């Protein structure tokens, strides 16, 4: 049963600057729990910056400065008491290119847990099973757990990266173009996986593939030149966008 709709993240007046360049302008947006929110828009318009702002990954970029608030679990993550390691565990990220560690499949899953101090062998094995099961990799890989993760196909690697994240029991999964390095069949399977995952997790995905946003998401936000032009239910955005600029982008007249 999906929980009643609630905002898991509330973004208030969020602006991000890279040096003097303002990449995001006063963004207001709520992310709902157990829903998939897609962010679309042309390249360089702030989608990925916004995504990275949700778990403070922009902190890693030199010269980046953030204003405004991102409220997660009742607290502004930009407040001084935020534990970044803990935040990024609860709000995890999957990247464009699968980036498994050059370790065995099993170690990829358990590495993060061990970093967080978990050494119980039975617990780790249970996690390994559950995480691979959750991304439908267990049956495929159960006899190859100690082979290098780098031998897997691109799709398997991307699933493994998602499984690695799930092992840490995140609440929100941020996905930055998770299918851009995958073929259409692999893409379709990752999309199916997203539908399964939203029962337990909240997903925010940045995608250049508008049809992907239409297929997988419940809510869509359209970014243009650092502004959030329009945000609404995906059905509404793709059948009757309210803003002319959204209409032009969705119908391929612009972008």
């Amino acid at each position: 049963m999906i929980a009643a709709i609630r905002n898991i993240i509330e973004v208030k007046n969020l602006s991000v600057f890279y040096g003097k360049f303002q990449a995001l302008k006063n963004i207001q947006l709520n992310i709902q729990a157990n829903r998939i929110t897609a962010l679309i828009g042309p390249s360089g318009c702030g989608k990925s910056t916004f995504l990275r702002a949700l778990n403070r990954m922009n902190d890693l970029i030199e010269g980046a400065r953030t204003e405004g608030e991102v409220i997660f679990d009742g607290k502004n993550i930009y407040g001084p008491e935020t534990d970044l390691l803990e935040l990024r565990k609860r709000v995890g990220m999957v990247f464009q290119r699968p980036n498994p560690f050059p370790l065995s499949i099993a170690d990829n899953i358990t590495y993060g847990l061990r970093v967080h101090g978990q050494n119980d062998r039975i617990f780790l094995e249970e996690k390994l099973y559950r995480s691979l099961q959750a991304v439908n990799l267990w049956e495929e890989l159960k006899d190859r757990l100690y082979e290098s993760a780098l031998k897997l196909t691109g799709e398997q690697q991307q699933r493994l990266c998602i499984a690695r994240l799930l092992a840490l029991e995140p609440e929100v999964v941020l996905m930055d173009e998770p299918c851009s390095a995958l073929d259409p069949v692999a893409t379709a399977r990752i999309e199916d996986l997203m539908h399964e995952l939203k029962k337990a997790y909240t997903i925010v995905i940045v995608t250049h593939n508008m049809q992907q946003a239409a297929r997988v998401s419940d809510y869509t936000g359209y970014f243009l030149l650092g502004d959030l032009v329009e945000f609404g239910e995906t059905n509404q955005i793709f059948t009757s966008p309210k803003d002319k600029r959204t209409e032009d982008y969705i119908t391929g007249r612009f972008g």
Partner: protein
Amino acid sequence: MTRYFDEELLELNKKILEMSAEVESAIGNSIKALRELSREKAEAIIKDDDRIDNIDLAIEEKCLNLIALYQPAAADLRFIVMCMKIATDLERIADLAVDIAQRVLEMAGQPLLKPLIDIPKLATLSQQMVREAINSFVNKDTELARSVILKDNEADELRNLVQSELINDYMSKDPSTAPRAVALLLVARHLERICDHATNVAEDVIYMVKAEQVRHHPESLK
């Protein structure tokens, strides 16, 4: 930016216009056939209906292809889906013109039961509603579409007038008039159904242009 896709949409638009012209002339001819009780004109309408059916099939195929190949969204999607629905209504209007032609064949060669008064009014109204519904599509004119929808009540009233007159003044007084009265009753019914389909087209035009659903909510038009 101009899109190749726009040429495809233009082609679809042309097919709808072609079908509209055929349908308008089918109604016009069926009304003429009725006024003159012309067997020859009625037969021509029945024969021409195949051509309209074929355009309908071609429009449906074009729409399905555009959806499958381009995955249209927003205004493009609304345009294509509404073209598909409008084609269906136009095809039904043409079928009703055929139905009128068939009534003409039944009535031809016998004297009219009574001079026609309200039926010609209804015929004129239905022709006008179809023409205006098509014009509202062509010009994406939602005000005109709205006025078409608001005329539908008038059509219903005229049909009721014809019906009560035929039943009360003829059929119940002299049952031998029934065959000719029923034919006229059906003509009124066909004309009123034409108005209903013109109303559907107008409603679809409003959705297509404004993404506003007015179907089943006539109060939203007031």
